[in-house]
Protein backbone atom coordinates (compact mmCIF):
# COMPACT_ATOMS: atom_id res chain seq x y z
CA UNK A 1 0.00 0.00 0.00
CA UNK A 2 1.16 3.51 -0.68
CA UNK A 3 1.22 6.52 1.62
CA UNK A 4 -1.22 9.42 1.48
CA UNK A 5 1.17 11.78 -0.36
CA UNK A 6 2.09 9.00 -2.79
CA UNK A 7 -1.58 8.24 -3.37
CA UNK A 8 -2.36 11.90 -3.95
CA UNK A 9 0.38 12.13 -6.58
CA UNK A 10 -0.58 8.86 -8.24
CA UNK A 11 -4.25 9.80 -8.44
CA UNK A 12 -3.61 13.24 -9.86
CA UNK A 13 -1.02 12.06 -12.37
CA UNK A 14 -3.23 9.24 -13.59
CA UNK A 15 -0.76 6.58 -12.44
CA UNK A 16 -3.47 4.99 -10.34
CA UNK A 17 -7.20 5.28 -9.86
CA UNK A 18 -9.07 5.34 -6.59
CA UNK A 19 -10.76 2.11 -7.66
CA UNK A 20 -7.33 0.48 -8.01
CA UNK A 21 -6.23 1.73 -4.60
CA UNK A 22 -9.48 0.62 -3.03
CA UNK A 23 -9.39 -2.80 -4.63
CA UNK A 24 -5.82 -3.17 -3.38
CA UNK A 25 -7.03 -2.39 0.15
CA UNK A 26 -9.85 -4.89 -0.09
CA UNK A 27 -7.52 -7.56 -1.45
CA UNK A 28 -4.93 -6.84 1.24
CA UNK A 29 -7.56 -7.06 3.95
CA UNK A 30 -8.79 -10.37 2.57
CA UNK A 31 -5.24 -11.70 2.43
CA UNK A 32 -3.92 -10.48 5.76
CA UNK A 33 -6.84 -10.08 8.11
CA UNK A 34 -7.09 -13.75 8.99
CA UNK A 35 -3.79 -13.17 10.82
CA UNK A 36 -4.34 -9.57 11.94
CA UNK A 37 -8.08 -9.20 12.70
CA UNK A 38 -7.63 -5.48 12.10
CA UNK A 39 -11.11 -4.99 10.65
CA UNK A 40 -14.50 -5.90 12.08
CA UNK A 41 -16.25 -5.19 8.80
CA UNK A 42 -15.27 -4.20 5.27
CA UNK A 43 -17.69 -2.16 3.19
CA UNK A 44 -16.64 -3.32 -0.27
CA UNK A 45 -19.68 -2.05 -2.14
CA UNK A 46 -19.72 1.33 -0.43
CA UNK A 47 -15.97 1.72 -0.81
CA UNK A 48 -15.96 0.93 -4.53
CA UNK A 49 -18.86 3.31 -5.13
CA UNK A 50 -17.00 6.07 -3.27
CA UNK A 51 -13.83 5.25 -5.22
CA UNK A 52 -15.67 5.55 -8.51
CA UNK A 53 -17.10 8.88 -7.40
CA UNK A 54 -13.60 10.07 -6.54
CA UNK A 55 -12.31 8.94 -9.91
CA UNK A 56 -15.13 10.86 -11.61
CA UNK A 57 -14.26 13.95 -9.61
CA UNK A 58 -10.61 13.66 -10.58
CA UNK A 59 -11.53 13.18 -14.23
CA UNK A 60 -13.71 16.29 -14.01
CA UNK A 61 -10.78 18.29 -12.66
CA UNK A 62 -12.17 18.74 -9.18
CA UNK A 63 -9.77 18.52 -6.23
CA UNK A 64 -11.45 17.73 -2.93
CA UNK A 65 -8.24 17.66 -0.92
CA UNK A 66 -5.39 15.41 0.12
CA UNK A 67 -7.54 12.39 1.00
CA UNK A 68 -9.54 12.38 -2.24
CA UNK A 69 -9.75 8.80 -3.47
CA UNK A 70 -7.74 7.41 -0.55
CA UNK A 71 -9.12 4.31 1.24
CA UNK A 72 -9.33 4.72 5.01
CA UNK A 73 -10.39 2.69 8.04
CA UNK A 74 -12.66 3.97 10.79
CA UNK A 75 -12.41 2.77 14.39
CA UNK A 76 -15.54 0.93 15.38
CA UNK A 77 -16.61 3.45 17.99
CA UNK A 78 -17.25 6.05 15.26
CA UNK A 79 -20.63 6.16 13.54
CA UNK A 80 -20.57 5.41 9.82
CA UNK A 81 -24.04 5.57 8.28
CA UNK A 82 -25.18 2.14 7.19
CA UNK A 83 -22.69 0.23 9.33
CA UNK A 84 -23.14 -0.84 12.96
CA UNK A 85 -21.08 0.73 15.73
CA UNK A 86 -20.26 -2.21 18.00
CA UNK A 87 -17.53 -0.64 20.17
CA UNK A 88 -15.80 -3.99 20.44
CA UNK A 89 -18.61 -5.19 22.66
CA UNK A 90 -21.21 -7.94 22.26
CA UNK A 91 -23.58 -5.71 24.17
CA UNK A 92 -23.81 -3.17 21.39
CA UNK A 93 -26.50 -3.85 18.76
CA UNK A 94 -25.76 -4.76 15.17
CA UNK A 95 -28.20 -2.14 13.90
CA UNK A 96 -26.57 0.25 11.43
CA UNK A 97 -25.87 3.83 12.41
CA UNK A 98 -28.34 6.25 10.86
CA UNK A 99 -25.89 9.07 10.28
CA UNK A 100 -22.18 9.70 9.95
CA UNK A 101 -20.08 11.10 12.76
CA UNK A 102 -18.87 14.61 11.98
CA UNK A 103 -15.36 13.42 11.20
CA UNK A 104 -16.72 10.81 8.78
CA UNK A 105 -18.74 13.52 7.06
CA UNK A 106 -15.56 15.55 6.74
CA UNK A 107 -13.73 12.57 5.27
CA UNK A 108 -16.49 11.89 2.75
CA UNK A 109 -16.65 15.58 1.82
CA UNK A 110 -12.91 15.37 1.20
CA UNK A 111 -13.40 12.43 -1.14
CA UNK A 112 -11.96 9.76 1.17
CA UNK A 113 -13.11 6.18 0.67
CA UNK A 114 -14.42 4.43 3.78
CA UNK A 115 -13.05 0.91 3.34
CA UNK A 116 -14.29 -0.56 6.60
CA UNK A 117 -14.34 -0.37 10.37
CA UNK A 118 -11.34 -1.29 12.48
CA UNK A 119 -11.24 -3.37 15.62
CA UNK A 120 -11.21 -1.57 18.95
CA UNK A 121 -10.47 -2.79 22.42
CA UNK A 122 -13.83 -3.26 24.12
CA UNK A 123 -15.49 0.10 24.80
CA UNK A 124 -12.20 1.76 23.76
CA UNK A 125 -10.99 0.94 27.24
CA UNK A 126 -7.76 -1.05 27.05
CA UNK A 127 -4.43 -1.45 25.30
CA UNK A 128 -4.62 -5.05 24.01
CA UNK A 129 -7.35 -4.85 21.33
CA UNK A 130 -7.96 -8.59 21.09
CA UNK A 131 -8.02 -10.42 18.73
CA UNK A 132 -5.81 -8.01 16.77
CA UNK A 133 -2.19 -9.02 16.22
CA UNK A 134 0.83 -6.81 15.68
CA UNK A 135 2.14 -6.97 12.08
CA UNK A 136 5.72 -6.88 13.39
CA UNK A 137 5.19 -10.04 15.42
CA UNK A 138 1.86 -11.82 15.48
CA UNK A 139 2.42 -13.01 19.06
CA UNK A 140 2.57 -9.38 20.25
CA UNK A 141 -0.21 -6.92 20.95
CA UNK A 142 -0.83 -4.03 18.56
CA UNK A 143 -1.65 -1.70 21.44
CA UNK A 144 -4.95 -0.06 21.95
CA UNK A 145 -7.54 0.83 22.10
CA UNK A 146 -7.20 1.70 18.39
CA UNK A 147 -5.34 -1.56 17.76
CA UNK A 148 -7.14 -2.45 14.56
CA UNK A 149 -6.35 0.95 13.09
CA UNK A 150 -2.68 0.59 14.03
CA UNK A 151 -2.38 -2.89 12.56
CA UNK A 152 -4.29 -1.96 9.38
CA UNK A 153 -1.97 0.95 8.59
CA UNK A 154 1.23 -0.82 9.65
CA UNK A 155 0.35 -3.80 7.44
CA UNK A 156 -0.28 -1.54 4.46
CA UNK A 157 -3.97 -2.34 4.16
CA UNK A 158 -5.00 1.32 4.23
CA UNK A 159 -2.85 4.48 4.25
CA UNK A 160 -4.84 6.02 7.10
CA UNK A 161 -7.20 4.90 9.83
CA UNK A 162 -9.02 6.85 12.49
CA UNK A 163 -8.29 6.26 16.16
CA UNK A 164 -9.48 7.68 19.42
CA UNK A 165 -7.25 8.56 22.34
CA UNK A 166 -8.38 8.92 25.97
CA UNK A 167 -5.13 7.91 27.64
CA UNK A 168 -2.95 7.10 24.64
CA UNK A 169 -5.13 4.99 22.38
CA UNK A 170 -3.85 6.55 19.14
CA UNK A 171 -0.21 6.90 20.17
CA UNK A 172 0.11 3.50 21.86
CA UNK A 173 -0.77 1.47 18.73
CA UNK A 174 1.21 3.91 16.59
CA UNK A 175 4.29 3.32 18.70
CA UNK A 176 3.88 -0.45 18.97
CA UNK A 177 3.09 -0.87 15.25
CA UNK A 178 5.83 1.44 14.00
CA UNK A 179 3.64 4.10 12.41
CA UNK A 180 2.61 7.73 13.02
CA UNK A 181 -0.23 8.64 15.38
CA UNK A 182 -1.49 12.14 16.11
CA UNK A 183 -3.59 13.18 19.06
CA UNK A 184 -4.31 16.80 18.30
CA UNK A 185 -5.24 19.40 20.90
CA UNK A 186 -8.44 18.68 22.82
CA UNK A 187 -11.24 20.19 20.74
CA UNK A 188 -9.32 20.23 17.46
CA UNK A 189 -11.24 17.25 16.02
CA UNK A 190 -14.96 16.87 16.65
CA UNK A 191 -16.13 14.01 18.86
CA UNK A 192 -19.75 14.16 17.64
CA UNK A 193 -21.06 10.77 16.59
CA UNK A 194 -18.35 8.90 18.46
CA UNK A 195 -19.00 6.66 21.46
CA UNK A 196 -17.35 8.21 24.49
CA UNK A 197 -15.01 6.64 26.99
CA UNK A 198 -14.40 9.81 29.01
CA UNK A 199 -15.81 12.98 27.49
CA UNK A 200 -13.23 15.35 28.93
CA UNK A 201 -10.25 13.24 27.84
CA UNK A 202 -11.40 11.82 24.50
CA UNK A 203 -9.59 12.88 21.33
CA UNK A 204 -9.92 11.68 17.73
CA UNK A 205 -7.14 11.58 15.18
CA UNK A 206 -5.32 9.80 12.37
CA UNK A 207 -2.92 6.87 12.28
CA UNK A 208 -0.80 7.00 9.14
CA UNK A 209 2.41 5.65 7.67
CA UNK A 210 4.09 9.05 7.46
CA UNK A 211 4.05 12.45 9.15
CA UNK A 212 3.03 14.12 5.89
CA UNK A 213 0.02 11.82 5.79
CA UNK A 214 -0.84 12.76 9.33
CA UNK A 215 -0.67 16.48 8.52
CA UNK A 216 -2.81 16.02 5.43
CA UNK A 217 -5.38 14.01 7.36
CA UNK A 218 -5.61 16.60 10.12
CA UNK A 219 -6.32 19.31 7.57
CA UNK A 220 -9.41 17.34 6.60
CA UNK A 221 -10.47 16.25 10.09
CA UNK A 222 -9.99 19.45 12.10
CA UNK A 223 -12.46 22.27 12.50
CA UNK A 224 -15.42 23.63 14.42
CA UNK A 225 -18.59 21.62 14.86
CA UNK A 226 -21.89 22.83 16.30
CA UNK A 227 -22.63 19.22 17.29
CA UNK A 228 -19.63 19.10 19.65
CA UNK A 229 -19.52 21.87 22.26
CA UNK A 230 -15.83 21.23 22.89
CA UNK A 231 -14.85 21.62 19.23
CA UNK A 232 -12.66 24.69 18.85
CA UNK A 233 -13.69 27.53 16.53
CA UNK A 234 -10.02 28.36 15.83
CA UNK A 235 -9.10 28.43 12.13
CA UNK A 236 -7.43 25.29 10.82
CA UNK A 237 -3.90 25.96 9.53
CA UNK A 238 -2.39 24.26 6.53
CA UNK A 239 -0.45 21.70 8.53
CA UNK A 240 1.54 20.45 5.55
CA UNK A 241 3.15 23.82 4.87
CA UNK A 242 5.85 23.61 7.57
CA UNK A 243 6.87 20.01 7.24
CA UNK A 244 10.11 20.68 5.39
CA UNK A 245 11.33 23.58 7.53
CA UNK A 246 13.60 21.43 9.67
CA UNK A 247 14.28 21.96 13.36
CA UNK A 248 17.03 24.55 13.12
CA UNK A 249 16.18 27.33 15.56
CA UNK A 250 13.65 25.35 17.56
CA UNK A 251 14.11 24.73 21.26
CA UNK A 252 13.06 21.23 22.22
CA UNK A 253 12.71 19.87 25.73
CA UNK A 254 13.81 16.34 26.54
CA UNK A 255 11.72 15.02 29.40
CA UNK A 256 13.50 13.20 32.20
CA UNK A 257 12.30 11.71 35.48
CA UNK A 258 8.59 11.11 36.06
CA UNK A 259 6.74 9.49 34.40
CA UNK A 260 9.37 7.84 32.22
CA UNK A 261 10.91 5.46 34.75
CA UNK A 262 11.13 2.55 34.73
CA UNK A 263 11.89 2.10 31.06
CA UNK A 264 13.26 -0.76 28.95
CA UNK A 265 16.97 -0.14 28.24
CA UNK A 266 16.50 -0.44 24.47
CA UNK A 267 13.77 2.20 24.59
CA UNK A 268 16.01 4.51 26.61
CA UNK A 269 18.79 4.06 24.08
CA UNK A 270 16.54 4.80 21.10
CA UNK A 271 15.10 7.84 22.88
CA UNK A 272 18.53 9.28 23.66
CA UNK A 273 19.65 8.73 20.08
CA UNK A 274 16.53 10.44 18.75
CA UNK A 275 17.13 13.52 20.90
CA UNK A 276 20.78 13.59 19.83
CA UNK A 277 19.77 13.38 16.19
CA UNK A 278 17.42 16.36 16.45
CA UNK A 279 20.16 18.27 18.27
CA UNK A 280 22.61 17.42 15.52
CA UNK A 281 20.19 18.89 12.98
CA UNK A 282 20.03 22.28 14.62
CA UNK A 283 17.49 22.12 17.44
CA UNK A 284 18.52 23.43 20.85
CA UNK A 285 17.90 20.53 23.20
CA UNK A 286 17.25 21.14 26.90
CA UNK A 287 16.58 18.67 29.69
CA UNK A 288 13.24 19.19 31.45
CA UNK A 289 11.67 17.63 34.51
CA UNK A 290 7.99 17.92 35.43
CA UNK A 291 7.63 16.14 38.77
CA UNK A 292 3.85 16.64 38.80
CA UNK A 293 3.58 14.05 36.03
CA UNK A 294 4.20 11.38 38.67
CA UNK A 295 0.51 11.78 39.51
CA UNK A 296 -0.72 11.39 35.96
CA UNK A 297 -2.05 7.85 36.28
CA UNK A 298 -4.05 8.63 39.42
CA UNK A 299 -5.58 11.68 37.76
CA UNK A 300 -6.23 9.84 34.49
CA UNK A 301 -8.07 6.91 36.03
CA UNK A 302 -9.75 9.16 38.58
CA UNK A 303 -11.43 10.89 35.64
CA UNK A 304 -11.92 7.93 33.30
CA UNK A 305 -13.73 5.75 35.84
CA UNK A 306 -16.61 8.10 36.73
CA UNK A 307 -17.01 9.54 33.23
CA UNK A 308 -17.04 6.07 31.64
CA UNK A 309 -19.44 4.83 34.31
CA UNK A 310 -21.78 7.73 33.65
CA UNK A 311 -21.70 7.05 29.91
CA UNK A 312 -22.19 3.28 30.23
CA UNK A 313 -24.40 3.12 33.34
CA UNK A 314 -27.40 1.60 31.59
CA UNK A 315 -25.23 -1.00 29.91
CA UNK A 316 -23.67 -1.78 33.27
CA UNK A 317 -27.08 -2.26 34.90
CA UNK A 318 -28.78 -4.20 32.12
CA UNK A 319 -26.03 -6.35 30.58
CA UNK A 320 -23.08 -6.45 32.96
CA UNK A 321 -22.38 -10.06 32.02
CA UNK A 322 -21.48 -8.87 28.53
CA UNK A 323 -18.75 -6.52 29.75
CA UNK A 324 -15.15 -7.66 30.27
CA UNK A 325 -14.61 -8.16 34.04
CA UNK A 326 -11.74 -5.67 34.22
CA UNK A 327 -13.73 -2.96 32.44
CA UNK A 328 -16.78 -3.83 34.54
CA UNK A 329 -14.76 -3.27 37.70
CA UNK A 330 -13.69 0.15 36.43
CA UNK A 331 -17.31 1.09 35.68
CA UNK A 332 -18.57 -0.17 39.03
CA UNK A 333 -15.91 1.86 40.83
CA UNK A 334 -16.77 4.88 38.74
CA UNK A 335 -20.41 4.67 39.82
CA UNK A 336 -19.61 4.07 43.46
CA UNK A 337 -16.80 6.52 44.19
CA UNK A 338 -17.74 9.72 45.95
CA UNK A 339 -17.74 12.94 43.90
CA UNK A 340 -14.81 14.17 46.01
CA UNK A 341 -12.51 11.76 44.20
CA UNK A 342 -13.66 12.84 40.74
CA UNK A 343 -13.25 16.51 41.48
CA UNK A 344 -9.86 15.90 43.05
CA UNK A 345 -8.77 14.17 39.85
CA UNK A 346 -10.07 17.14 37.83
CA UNK A 347 -8.09 19.48 40.05
CA UNK A 348 -5.02 17.29 39.60
CA UNK A 349 -5.51 17.52 35.84
CA UNK A 350 -5.47 21.30 36.11
CA UNK A 351 -2.29 21.16 38.22
CA UNK A 352 -0.62 18.84 35.70
CA UNK A 353 -1.71 21.02 32.78
CA UNK A 354 -0.34 24.08 34.56
CA UNK A 355 2.94 22.30 35.26
CA UNK A 356 3.35 21.40 31.59
CA UNK A 357 2.52 24.97 30.57
CA UNK A 358 5.19 26.26 32.96
CA UNK A 359 7.69 23.79 31.53
CA UNK A 360 7.02 25.13 28.03
CA UNK A 361 6.88 28.81 28.94
CA UNK A 362 9.73 29.02 31.44
CA UNK A 363 12.07 27.04 29.20
CA UNK A 364 10.90 28.72 26.00
CA UNK A 365 10.14 25.32 24.48
CA UNK A 366 8.67 24.79 21.06
CA UNK A 367 8.22 21.06 21.66
CA UNK A 368 8.74 18.44 24.32
CA UNK A 369 10.07 14.94 23.66
CA UNK A 370 9.38 11.72 25.50
CA UNK A 371 9.54 8.12 24.46
CA UNK A 372 5.96 7.42 23.42
CA UNK A 373 6.01 4.36 25.67
CA UNK A 374 8.50 2.97 28.18
CA UNK A 375 8.26 -0.49 26.63
CA UNK A 376 7.76 -2.14 23.24
CA UNK A 377 4.89 -4.46 22.29
CA UNK A 378 3.97 -6.93 25.01
CA UNK A 379 3.21 -10.55 24.32
CA UNK A 380 -0.50 -11.23 23.79
CA UNK A 381 -0.48 -13.26 27.00
CA UNK A 382 1.41 -10.78 29.20
CA UNK A 383 -0.30 -9.04 32.10
CA UNK A 384 2.82 -7.29 33.36
CA UNK A 385 6.14 -5.90 32.26
CA UNK A 386 9.14 -6.74 34.37
CA UNK A 387 11.50 -3.85 34.85
CA UNK A 388 14.35 -5.46 36.76
CA UNK A 389 12.76 -7.02 39.83
CA UNK A 390 9.52 -5.04 39.74
CA UNK A 391 6.39 -5.82 37.79
CA UNK A 392 4.07 -3.21 36.32
CA UNK A 393 0.75 -3.91 34.60
CA UNK A 394 1.08 -3.47 30.84
CA UNK A 395 -1.80 -0.99 30.71
CA UNK A 396 -0.36 1.28 33.39
CA UNK A 397 3.11 1.20 31.87
CA UNK A 398 1.80 2.37 28.53
CA UNK A 399 -0.60 5.02 29.81
CA UNK A 400 1.84 6.69 32.19
CA UNK A 401 3.79 8.33 29.34
CA UNK A 402 0.87 9.15 27.07
CA UNK A 403 -1.86 10.08 29.59
CA UNK A 404 -0.37 13.44 30.66
CA UNK A 405 -1.15 14.83 27.22
CA UNK A 406 -4.77 13.78 27.50
CA UNK A 407 -4.93 15.45 30.88
CA UNK A 408 -3.37 18.65 29.57
CA UNK A 409 -5.06 18.51 26.17
CA UNK A 410 -1.75 19.31 24.47
CA UNK A 411 -1.13 17.94 20.97
CA UNK A 412 1.13 14.89 20.92
CA UNK A 413 2.50 13.02 17.93
CA UNK A 414 4.11 9.58 17.94
CA UNK A 415 6.63 8.81 15.19
CA UNK A 416 8.73 5.68 14.66
CA UNK A 417 12.13 6.19 16.28
CA UNK A 418 13.87 2.82 16.11
CA UNK A 419 13.67 -0.81 17.13
CA UNK A 420 14.49 -2.90 20.16
CA UNK A 421 16.71 -5.98 20.13
CA UNK A 422 13.72 -8.12 19.10
CA UNK A 423 12.96 -5.95 16.09
CA UNK A 424 9.92 -4.35 17.69
CA UNK A 425 9.22 -0.66 16.99
CA UNK A 426 9.97 2.13 19.48
CA UNK A 427 8.08 5.43 19.24
CA UNK A 428 9.13 9.01 19.87
CA UNK A 429 6.45 11.30 21.32
CA UNK A 430 6.53 14.99 20.35
CA UNK A 431 4.24 17.30 22.30
CA UNK A 432 3.68 20.97 21.55
CA UNK A 433 1.80 24.00 22.83
CA UNK A 434 -2.01 24.07 22.55
CA UNK A 435 -3.20 24.15 18.94
CA UNK A 436 0.40 24.11 17.73
CA UNK A 437 0.13 20.80 15.90
CA UNK A 438 2.14 22.47 13.17
CA UNK A 439 5.28 22.43 15.28
CA UNK A 440 4.81 18.85 16.48
CA UNK A 441 4.36 17.78 12.85
CA UNK A 442 7.35 19.86 11.73
CA UNK A 443 9.60 18.22 14.32
CA UNK A 444 8.17 14.81 13.48
CA UNK A 445 8.72 15.28 9.76
CA UNK A 446 12.25 16.49 10.30
CA UNK A 447 13.04 13.50 12.51
CA UNK A 448 11.40 11.12 10.05
CA UNK A 449 13.50 12.46 7.19
CA UNK A 450 16.83 12.03 8.97
CA UNK A 451 16.18 8.93 11.07
CA UNK A 452 15.40 6.59 8.20
CA UNK A 453 13.22 4.39 10.39
CA UNK A 454 9.85 4.71 8.70
CA UNK A 455 10.91 2.92 5.53
CA UNK A 456 11.11 -0.46 7.27
CA UNK A 457 8.12 -2.68 6.75
CA UNK A 458 6.82 -5.38 9.07
CA UNK A 459 6.81 -9.07 8.12
CA UNK A 460 3.03 -8.98 7.70
CA UNK A 461 2.66 -6.36 5.00
CA UNK A 462 0.85 -5.76 1.73
CA UNK A 463 2.72 -3.92 -0.99
CA UNK A 464 -0.53 -3.31 -2.90
CA UNK A 465 -0.49 -1.29 -6.07
CA UNK A 466 2.72 0.34 -7.22
CA UNK A 467 2.59 4.09 -7.62
CA UNK A 468 4.94 6.50 -9.31
CA UNK A 469 6.17 7.98 -6.07
Amino acid at each position, binding site marked *: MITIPEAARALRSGAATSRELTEASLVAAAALDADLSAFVVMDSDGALAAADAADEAIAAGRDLGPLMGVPVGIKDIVDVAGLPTRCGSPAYPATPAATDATLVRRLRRGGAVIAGKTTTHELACGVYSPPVSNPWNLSRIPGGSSGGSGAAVAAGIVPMAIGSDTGGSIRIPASLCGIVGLKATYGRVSRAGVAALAWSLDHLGPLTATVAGSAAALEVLAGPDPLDPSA*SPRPVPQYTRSLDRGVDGLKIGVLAGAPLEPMQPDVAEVFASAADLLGAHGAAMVGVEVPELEHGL*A*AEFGIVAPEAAAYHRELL*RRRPDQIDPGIRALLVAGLMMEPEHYF*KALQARRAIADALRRAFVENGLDALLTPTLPATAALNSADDFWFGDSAEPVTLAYVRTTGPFNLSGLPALSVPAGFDRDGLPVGLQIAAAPFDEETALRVGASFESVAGVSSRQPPTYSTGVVADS
Partner: protein
Amino acid sequence: MPAVSDGVHDEPVDNDDPVELTAARMRALGLDHEVFDPAAAWADLAQRIAQSASLDALVSRSGGPDPTAFDPSWPDDSQRPSGK
Protein backbone atom coordinates in the same frame (compact mmCIF):
# COMPACT_ATOMS: atom_id res chain seq x y z
CA MET B 1 -23.83 -4.75 65.66
CA PRO B 2 -26.01 -1.99 64.19
CA ALA B 3 -28.13 -2.76 61.18
CA VAL B 4 -29.57 -0.32 58.68
CA SER B 5 -31.61 -0.45 55.52
CA ASP B 6 -29.98 0.55 52.26
CA GLY B 7 -33.08 2.61 51.51
CA VAL B 8 -34.14 0.45 48.60
CA HIS B 9 -34.30 -3.09 49.85
CA ASP B 10 -35.89 -4.31 53.04
CA GLU B 11 -33.12 -6.50 54.37
CA PRO B 12 -30.93 -4.94 57.06
CA VAL B 13 -27.28 -4.25 56.38
CA ASP B 14 -24.38 -4.70 58.77
CA ASN B 15 -22.88 -1.24 58.59
CA ASP B 16 -19.61 -2.38 60.16
CA ASP B 17 -18.95 -4.78 57.33
CA PRO B 18 -17.52 -2.94 54.32
CA VAL B 19 -18.40 -5.75 51.95
CA GLU B 20 -22.02 -5.73 53.10
CA LEU B 21 -22.13 -1.97 52.83
CA THR B 22 -20.69 -2.24 49.35
CA ALA B 23 -23.29 -4.84 48.42
CA ALA B 24 -26.05 -2.59 49.74
CA ARG B 25 -24.73 0.39 47.83
CA MET B 26 -24.49 -1.68 44.67
CA ARG B 27 -28.09 -2.80 45.05
CA ALA B 28 -29.14 0.80 45.58
CA LEU B 29 -27.40 1.72 42.35
CA GLY B 30 -29.19 -1.05 40.48
CA LEU B 31 -26.12 -3.26 40.27
CA ASP B 32 -27.81 -6.45 41.37
CA HIS B 33 -26.88 -8.87 38.60
CA GLU B 34 -25.28 -12.11 39.71
CA VAL B 35 -21.96 -11.26 38.03
CA PHE B 36 -21.31 -8.51 40.53
CA ASP B 37 -19.04 -9.50 43.39
CA PRO B 38 -19.27 -7.05 46.30
CA ALA B 39 -16.09 -8.34 47.94
CA ALA B 40 -14.09 -7.79 44.76
CA ALA B 41 -15.77 -4.44 44.21
CA TRP B 42 -14.89 -3.34 47.73
CA ALA B 43 -11.24 -4.36 47.30
CA ASP B 44 -11.06 -2.57 43.95
CA LEU B 45 -12.73 0.51 45.37
CA ALA B 46 -10.32 0.61 48.29
CA GLN B 47 -7.40 0.51 45.86
CA ARG B 48 -8.84 3.34 43.77
CA ILE B 49 -9.56 5.46 46.81
CA ALA B 50 -5.96 4.98 47.94
CA GLN B 51 -4.85 6.07 44.47
CA SER B 52 -7.07 9.13 44.79
CA ALA B 53 -5.51 9.88 48.16
CA SER B 54 -2.11 10.01 46.48
CA LEU B 55 -3.33 13.12 44.67
CA ASP B 56 -3.44 14.97 47.98
CA ALA B 57 0.26 15.61 47.42
CA LEU B 58 -0.67 17.59 44.33
CA VAL B 59 -4.01 19.11 45.26
CA SER B 60 -4.84 20.43 48.68
CA ARG B 61 -7.87 18.87 50.35
CA SER B 62 -9.71 22.18 50.46
CA GLY B 63 -9.57 24.80 47.77
CA GLY B 64 -7.02 24.24 45.06
CA PRO B 65 -7.32 24.88 41.35
CA ASP B 66 -10.74 25.41 39.81
CA PRO B 67 -11.28 22.34 37.63
CA THR B 68 -14.61 23.26 36.13
CA ALA B 69 -13.53 25.41 33.21
CA PHE B 70 -10.93 23.15 31.64
CA ASP B 71 -9.64 24.65 28.41
CA PRO B 72 -6.48 23.34 26.84
CA SER B 73 -5.49 26.72 25.42
CA TRP B 74 -3.12 28.97 27.35
CA PRO B 75 -4.33 32.34 28.59
CA ASP B 76 -2.81 34.41 25.82
CA ASP B 77 -0.48 34.05 22.91
CA SER B 78 2.33 35.84 24.76
CA GLN B 79 2.75 32.60 26.69
CA ARG B 80 3.31 30.62 23.56
CA PRO B 81 6.86 29.53 22.80
CA SER B 82 9.15 31.88 20.97
CA GLY B 83 8.69 32.22 17.25
CA LYS B 84 5.07 31.10 17.28
